[in-house]
């Protein structure tokens, strides 16, 4: 069974059920209303006649019965006076209402026959017993009420059939509409699968569930497109960046093969190993970046003191910095600043930032490491007093492996900022570069809301 048919049937069924409820309600209400009116009139008529007997006796009653029969507005009016044996004395009725039980006073409905008719009719009756033992029967045959009821019942039946048909039609239209919108989405996703990643699902702008689905898919596509773009940049840059270490490696290997001097050969071989190591370092870092971007490693998150980590790293780099005539300053905050994250990766990111600061900002004489937090986020920043990075080149510094200094030869060093950004992203945070006036501030801004934080797409990529 197709979904369209199922939706149509469901809509038809729902229409039927709701129509049945409404029609049933109408039926019950109108039925009650007609019988109530009839009952009132019949009881009243009976009471009037009984009153006439009480005040005027039998002659007055006979007169009133005759008047009722003669002057009644409708011909269904039934009045009859019967003796205790059930023989008619006056009125237009042929016999007492048939009954299995002995006749009793009160309101009832029953079959009776008019004197001028042969067929018994359904009638509502008020029955009084006179003190003489005679029976006063008055009431109304109700062909009108019955007719009304019959018409009503027929109309209701037709209404139900109509409702069912209309429901099916509506369901079909609805199913077509839903199907059309889904087909639109399917068509677009189909084209995307056919590798046209620039396509987006058209939105109606009404913020209905279909729009939201479309929006969600579009956001997903944006993210995929971003990642693809990133992969392309990484692949291009990687292929580009690997050329120089590989060519140096090749040169060294050639030198080792051509020289006959053992000392020079050893030197060349050591250089080959060094180049191979630096290639491996680049590859490992690229791997780390792509893993962080793919959000791998979140299962290794744990709580740790960010200030203790910073203290450890500043102590670790202090001697290296001193060799470059620069001081690493870290003022440990008065209380521990805990964060939920990947301790090893954050350590690696911060260590990359410190190394970058030592490498490019050592002229400034000091590198300041800081850990600060507010209600929402924790910031680990490394600030140097070097030349900094001009504002218009900061995005490039992070994106394009940071090869701002083309004369740089250390392999993998340019990946430091990219990795820091990827690690910030893994934590749902941001990586920011700022002007230290003079110098560079590189900061990891990590949200404190914890492990449930869902990171959004990389900004600026």
């Amino acid at each position: 069974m197709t979904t369209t048919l199922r939706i149509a049937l469901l809509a038809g069924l729902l229409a039927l059920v709701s129509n049945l409820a409404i029609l049933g309600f109408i039926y019950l209400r109108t039925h009650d209303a007609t019988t109530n009116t009839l009952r009132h009139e019949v009881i009243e008529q009976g009471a009037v006649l009984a009153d006439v007997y009480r005040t005027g006796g039998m002659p007055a009653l006979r007169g009133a019965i005759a008047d009722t029969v003669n002057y009644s507005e409708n011909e269904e009016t039934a009045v009859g006076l019967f003796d205790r044996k059930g023989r008619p004395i006056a009125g237009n009725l042929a016999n007492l209402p048939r009954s299995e039980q002995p006749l009793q006073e009160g309101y009832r409905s029953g079959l009776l026959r008019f004197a001028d008719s042969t067929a018994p009719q359904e009638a509502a009756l008020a029955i009084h017993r006179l003190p003489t033992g005679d029976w006063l029967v008055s009431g109304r045959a109700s062909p009108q009420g019955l007719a009304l009821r019959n018409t009503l019942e027929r109309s209701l039946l037709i209404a139900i059939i109509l409702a069912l048909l209309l429901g099916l039609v509506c369901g079909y239209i609805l199913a077509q509409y839903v199907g059309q919108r889904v087909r639109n989405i399917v068509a677009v996703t189909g084209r995307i699968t056919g590798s046209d990643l620039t396509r987006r699902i058209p939105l109606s702008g009404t913020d209905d569930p279909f729009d939201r689905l479309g929006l969600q898919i579009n956001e997903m596509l944006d993210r995929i497109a971003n990642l693809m773009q990133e992969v392309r940049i990484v692949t291009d840059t990687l292929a580009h960046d690997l050329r120089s270490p590989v060519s140096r490696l090749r040169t060294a290997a050639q030198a080792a093969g051509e020289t006959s001097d053992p000392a020079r050969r050893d030197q060349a071989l050591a250089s080959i190993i060094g180049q191979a190591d630096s290639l491996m370092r680049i590859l490992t870092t690229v791997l780390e970046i792509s893993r962080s971007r793919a959000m791998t490693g979140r299962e290794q998150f744990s709580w740790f003191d960010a200030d203790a980590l910073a203290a450890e790293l500043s102590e670790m780099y202090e001697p290296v910095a001193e060799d470059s005539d620069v001081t690493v300053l870290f003022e440990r905050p008065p209380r521990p600043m805990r964060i939920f994250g990947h301790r090893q990766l954050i350590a690696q990111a911060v260590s990359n930032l410190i190394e970058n600061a030592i490498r490019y900002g050592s002229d400034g004489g000091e590198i300041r490491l800081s850990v600060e937090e507010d209600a929402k986020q924790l910031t680990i920043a490394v600030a140097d007093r070097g030349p900094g990075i001009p504002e218009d080149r900061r995005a490039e510094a992070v994106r394009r492996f940071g090869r701002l200094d083309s004369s740089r030869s250390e392999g993998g060093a340019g990946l430091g900022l990219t990795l820091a950004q990827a690690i910030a992203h893994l934590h749902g945070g941001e990586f920011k570069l700022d002007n230290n006036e003079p110098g560079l501030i590189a900061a990891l801004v990590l949200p404190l809301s914890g492990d449930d934080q869902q990171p959004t797409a990389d900004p600026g990529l």
Partner: protein
Amino acid sequence: MGRKILLVEDDRETAAYLANGLTQEGHSVEQSTNGQDGLFRATDSSFDLIILDRMLPGLDGISVLRALRAAHIETPVLVLSALASVGDRIEGLESGSDDYLVKPFSFAELLARVNALLRRREARVDPADHRLTVGDLEIEPLSRTVKRGGRKIDLKPREYLLLEYFARNEGRVVTRTMLLEQVWDYHFDPGTNVIDVHVSRLRRKLEEGFDKPLLHTVRGAGYMLAA
């Protein structure tokens, strides 16, 4: 003194290179090329050390390791892996291995780690607070005091940890990566000479005013503390 080492490695070239090198060091090496066979051999006979490749046909290294530990076989295990990310290293260590070495590695690095693991097995009875001596150097782990030739040497906390690690591996090569992992507990490659700088500071403090060097540089491998 030779030891029995089980080498589970499916890459024949790597396996032959490692087996050859370890045999030259005087160890006897038994080789296995897949996980099931490796696990079978490891449970069947006793080895002093198992070198286990992480990616193996059949049963992967981590599964072999978990099975071994589940069977209460506590032989030290050194995991070799081409998976180099920090997360992979942590996962490898957390799955019960005693050390984790990322491919490619130098043989010197592997040998240093093998020796450290073999020694650790031997030294398991040593109480941690036992006094350590290397030549005229005395280290008191309880009070963290260091003396050489009876003269007290002031060390920063990290320098002390560094020295203690060297002393516990006296006469054996310790690589930079080992120091980074064991003394700093970092599992990434900093890419600069940060460890060398720390070691040379420690060396200066240990050797200043003494003729005899204690902390030696081993070319192409790392460092060694020896009298």
